[in-house]
């Protein structure tokens, strides 16, 4: 009985140890998995957007098409005339 009891106790300790190791492994894997997902560079975490010039730049370029120039009163005889052609 004593020997059985000792064997049973040893088996119980072994089962506990296996369960503990399994739980630890799952925990370490889970932490590593979540850490990689959150922190590892190169992993898309949000919606992707196309590469290219920022919209503000495109707007600035387009604005220049409809932008006034700088004029002032003439002070000399003009060397050139603006007219329809």
């Amino acid at each position, binding site marked *: 009985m004593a020997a059985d009891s000792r064997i049973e106790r040893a088996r119980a300790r072994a089962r506990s140890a296996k369960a503990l190791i399994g739980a630890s492994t799952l925990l370490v894997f889970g932490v590593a998995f979540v850490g990689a997902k959150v922190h590892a560079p190169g992993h898309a975490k949000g919606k992707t957007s196309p590469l290219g010039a920022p919209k503000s730049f495109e707007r600035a370029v*387009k604005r*220049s*098409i*409809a*932008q*006034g*120039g*700088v*004029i*002032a*009163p*003439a*002070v*000399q*005889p*003009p*060397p*050139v*005339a*603006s*007219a*329809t*052609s």
Partner: protein
Amino acid sequence: MTVHRLEAMGCEIVAAGIDPETVARVFEEWEDEFSLFRPGSELCRVNRSPAEVLAVSPLFARALDVALDVAEDTNGLVDPTLCGRWREVRLVGRLLSRPAGLALDLNGVVKSLAVDAAAELIEGEGFVSAGGDIAVRGPVDVALPGGGAIRVVAGGLATSGTASRGRHLVDPRTGEPSDSLWEQVTASGSSCLAADVAAKAAFLLGPDGPAWLDEREIPGRFVALAGDVVESRLWTGALACI
């Protein structure tokens, strides 16, 4: 400042502060690419092609891209298809896609783009003018239609209207030559292209032209068929502030 005169794109080119041969070369390059009167020009070849998708040259792609931006900005008043179908033209890089048979006419932007391209080559001060559409580097005094003159300090100045060639500007909203109440509209822009586009759009808008320029803070001057002169708010302000 020595002023040079030459002929290109069917009009008189006036330039100063730049070698006239350089100016001639720039205009020849643009005319060779976009002339509707040269069967070998890329524009004619594109218009003749039955293909719906074509690869075009970098210069052609650049000009068409500008023309489509201009059509967007003017809500189709200056339209490279001349018939209100500019939204059917797609350009991705150098790949052009448009419905078969839809012809392009880039004359609405090509002359002023050539003026701006030539003016880019001025080292120091000077100007380039094609048929009266001007880009300056440094202040230049310019005579105005109907009399008077103005100093263009920066950017460009352009005039659109019916004075020299009659009713040649097509209104894309109707497909017919414009019956604008203006004879000539002169506008000042950040470049010759900007000035030319503003002048054309304001001319085609008729009575709404001055308000359209004011909304965009573009100085403009309108000569009516009856001879009256109307100035936009910024034009009057620019002349009064000095």
